[in-house]
């Protein structure tokens, strides 16, 4: 449906660099946008899952009879009803759809119930029970690696070690002896919950032609299709996945959540449509989380502040399944040294199975964890050398042509120094001394900075590709087929902007087709800061190609000497020599379908370097070639009596290439900073012996409007030649900054540093108290 959109240019074609209103805004603001959780329909049935509730058991008989006999229940299904592999996972297929041999965390699905209504469903779910033999669990990633620890996957050759990486440059850690100063730090980052407002949800039905149709809240419709087909034993082409706008995702819908379960239910509902929506507690229990990390750092520098040697050991808790844990580890290793030149580096990392909640993709993907560490190590080094933290960063910041901390030569635009310099000129940085002096009674104020880098794309092995499709309809309208989900980040609008700019059409002359495996083309996941970079490049090719065809056909029709005499205008073409116009509908009438549809494939560039960081690490994405950069500043006030930290102002200066839509760009920065503030100050999904103690938004607190300060987003626009219109990824980088910037600011304010996160008032008070004790002793 065509939407009334004011494109900010009085109905003209959108420009690049202009804040055209989002294409989804009108439908969303009027409450008419249909999310996956808004699908009901005639003759609907409901389905839901019986969760294990115990963290590690061998499953015996599953008792379904009482549930099956509950009035209103259509079916109670277990693993024996699954005809395919009953396994899912992105790289390792280690996660059962319905648990068969064991349950490995409390959220494992044991049975699936289909019922006429919500009430019967809940009643039946309570009546499903199963026999089990309790197994000892392991709830600490480092303990899971000890000899004799309970093993989660008996067939996994490395025990509880999912994946490990080891990487060295120069003389490795032995160069620490050559350093004038060495600082050490051990950091613990929390398990962060995505907390999207729309929980995992979807709707499915077997269509009249026998094909399974699933509408779901997802970032990965094409990968979902493969996973569902394989797990349920269906032909790939007998599954169709449609992806409406999700109500938030942030990585938590990068992979299967409800999809396979819904598909199984639909295959057993007698052709009736089925609906599933996890409630908030179930979403917390069964959804993926940001991997909790233990980070052991040593950083050595020369007297003049030049970084010389870095030694890192990190352990990530992936819970019971890989999901994307191995890939998160690889990205964490790659970013462990930040965006600095460090000649001697030793990196070790392990991603470990435990009986905790499942770790998975979450905006930042391993980088917020390591950035928390390296960016505080830089401040600790600067403090020891009595140097300015910003100066220390500038001294070591990478430039184009440099090798970064893993020895990767930076061949693309590299604007970290420009970001740091802009931060140094920012009024809030320059006036920080006066601002700090204005703290009231029992308040301390501090300023902290962090320098950031974030890779985009899938790395050297997994092809980072997109296939764009643009159609001129017989009626003379353009259809833009979006292959990559817009989970809120605004890429659907950017697609219209890119296509409209090339085809000279106002956005209301074009229509978006959202990702749908039957209609759009495979273009990868909505993840990895890749959406507009990869898909945008494909879209430019598709739109340019179609433009050429239209101009050529118009030139023939208008008897022009060449197509150079023809231009596209809104709704038509114009022959510049004769001044004649033709509407697009007329041109479309002279083109057959094959000519009216243009597709274009784009594959993102990869790093040619072949670094050996251990078996499988390259496959998991190490290294990348394209990076965004940023410099962040946090101004905080600490209450010495309560330990409460207030972030008063925040500045994010980013090099993410040119800005195609300033409003959408700011949305990405501001939203990621808010999530980062939550990660720094209050968010921790607490689990004890595998049981989640923070089961709702009263226990798991995310920032509200009262907690997030004014955020100043300043783009440093450096044209990236490989990007569409010069852009780079902006979706994730700002997530990496708040924790280290705030912690550095707290250290600046109070002289104490917190090493375990989030920085709750209790932890801040304890740190202040310890410092006072040390001084008095």
């Amino acid at each position: 449906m065509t939407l009334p959109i004011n494109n900010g240019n009085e109905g003209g074609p959108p420009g690049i660099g202009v804040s055209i209103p989002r294409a989804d805004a009108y439908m969303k603001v009027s409450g008419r946008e249909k999310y996956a959780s808004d699908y009901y329909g005639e003759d609907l049935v409901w389905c839901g899952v019986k969760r294990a509730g115990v963290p590690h058991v061998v499953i015996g008989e599953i008792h379904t009879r009482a549930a099956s006999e509950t009035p209103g229940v259509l079916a109670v299904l277990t693993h024996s009803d699954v005809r395919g592999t009953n396994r899912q996972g992105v790289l390792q297929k280690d996660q059962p759809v319905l648990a068969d041999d064991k349950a490995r965390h409390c959220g494992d699905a044991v049975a699936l119930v289909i019922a006429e209504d919500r009430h019967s469903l809940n009643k039946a779910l309570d009546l499903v029970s199963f026999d089990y033999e309790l197994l000892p669990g392991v709830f600490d990633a480092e303990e899971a690696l000890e000899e004799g620890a309970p093993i989660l996957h008996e067939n996994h050759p490395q025990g509880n070690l999912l994946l490990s990486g080891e990487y060295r440059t120069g003389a490795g850690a032995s160069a620490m002896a050559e350093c004038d100063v060495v600082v050490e730090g051990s950091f613990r980052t929390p398990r962060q919950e995505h907390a999207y407002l729309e929980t995992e949800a979807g709707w499915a039905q077997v269509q009249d032609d026998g094909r399974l149709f699933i509408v779901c809240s997802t970032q990965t419709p094409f990968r979902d299709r493969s996973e569902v087909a394989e797990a349920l034993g269906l032909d790939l082409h007998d599954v169709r996945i449609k992806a409406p706008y999700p109500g938030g995702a942030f990585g938590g819908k990068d992979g299967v959540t409800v999809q396979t379960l819904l598909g199984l239910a639909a295959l057993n509902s007698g052709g009736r449509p089925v609906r599933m929506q996890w409630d908030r507690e179930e979403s917390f229990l069964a959804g993926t989380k940001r991997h909790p990390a233990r980070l052991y750092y040593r950083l050595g520098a020369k007297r003049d502040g030049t970084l010389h040697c870095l030694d890192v050991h990190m352990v990530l808790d992936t819970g019971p399944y890989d999901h994307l844990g191995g890939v998160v580890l690889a990205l964490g290793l790659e970013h462990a040294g930040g965006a600095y030149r460090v000649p001697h580096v030793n990196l070790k990392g392990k991603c470990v199975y435990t009986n905790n909640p499942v770790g998975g993709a979450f905006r930042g993907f391993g980088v917020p964890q390591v950035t928390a560490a390296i960016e505080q190590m830089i401040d600790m080094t600067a403090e020891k050398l009595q140097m300015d933290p910003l100066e220390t960063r500038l001294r070591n910041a990478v430039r184009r042509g440099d090798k970064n901390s893993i020895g990767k030569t930076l061949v693309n635009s590299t604007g970290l120094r420009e970001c740091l310099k802009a931060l140094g000129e920012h009024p809030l940085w320059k006036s920080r001394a006066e601002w700090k002096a204005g703290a009231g009674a029992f308040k301390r104020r501090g300023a902290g900075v962090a320098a950031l880098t974030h890779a985009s794309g899938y790395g050297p092995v997994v092809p980072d590709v997109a296939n764009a499709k643009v159609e001129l309809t017989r009626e003379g309208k353009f259809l833009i087929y979006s292959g990559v989900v817009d989970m809120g980040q605004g890429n659907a609008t950017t697609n219209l902007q890119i296509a409209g700019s090339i085809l000279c059409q106002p956005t209301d002359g074009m229509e978006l087709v959202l990702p749908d495996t039957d209609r759009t083309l495979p273009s990868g996941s909505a993840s990895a800061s890749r959406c507009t970079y990869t898909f945008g490049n494909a879209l430019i090719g598709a739109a340019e190609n179609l433009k050429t065809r239209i101009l050529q056909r118009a030139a023939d029709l208008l008897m022009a000497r060449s197509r150079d005499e023809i231009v596209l205008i809104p709704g038509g073409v114009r022959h510049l020599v004769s001044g004649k116009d033709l509407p697009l509908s007329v041109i479309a009438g002279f083109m057959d379908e094959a000519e009216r549809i243009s597709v274009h494939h784009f594959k993102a560039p990869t790093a040619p370097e072949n670094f050996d960081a251990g078996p499988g690490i390259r496959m998991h994405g190490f290294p990348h070639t394209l990076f965004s950069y940023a410099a962040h500043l946090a101004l905080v006030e600490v209450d010495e009596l309560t330990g409460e930290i207030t972030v008063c102002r925040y500045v994010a200066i980013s090099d993410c290439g040119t800005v195609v839509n300033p409003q959408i760009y700011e949305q990405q920065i501001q939203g990621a900073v808010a999530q980062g503030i939550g990660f720094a100050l209050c968010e921790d999904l607490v689990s004890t012996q595998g049981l989640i103690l923070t089961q709702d938004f009263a226990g798991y607190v995310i920032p509200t409007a009262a907690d997030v300060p004014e955020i100043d987003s300043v783009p440093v626009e450096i044209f990236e030649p490989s990007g569409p219109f010069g852009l780079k990824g902006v979706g994730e980088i700002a997530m990496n900054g708040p924790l280290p910037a705030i912690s550095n600011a707290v250290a600046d304010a109070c002289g104490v540093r917190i090493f375990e996160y989030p920085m709750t008032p209790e932890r801040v008070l304890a740190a202040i108290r310890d410092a006072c004790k040390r001084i008095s002793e």
Partner: protein
Amino acid sequence: MKTIIQMTVNGELVESAVEPNRTLLQFLREDLDLTGTKHGCGLGDCGACTVILDGKPVNSCLVLAVQAHGREVLTIEGLAENGNLHPIQQAFVDKGAIQCGFCTPGMILSAKALLDENPKPSELEIRTAISGNLCRCTGYQKIVEAVQEAATVIDGTEVSS
């Protein structure tokens, strides 16, 4: 046992038989097909299901449908008039206060309840008024700007009319 209830929803009188434990949220979404009101947590923590009940914002997941009997409900679908967006909706579009959009209906209705009571709120008053509506995408800044903009527009309209 079902109870017959009557209420005004977006200006229209509706009558229905509902179970006593049916929430207003379920009634709106599943019986009236008004899916603009979102289910975010079911516990009154997130504000995604905010509607206006007799002029006051409520979490419709915490109100039983029978409690709305004889009362007036405004949902997001009832805010635009004759296809023209309400100034708050328009300001959310213009200021880019929407990303995934799932919190948007509740956020807008909380903002409306604020501006109805307090047409010229301070930034702090806006942030406080919407602090029961969680948003995970925006960082709230553009939402606050949109409410400020809407307040100005509404104020201007009232002066000129």
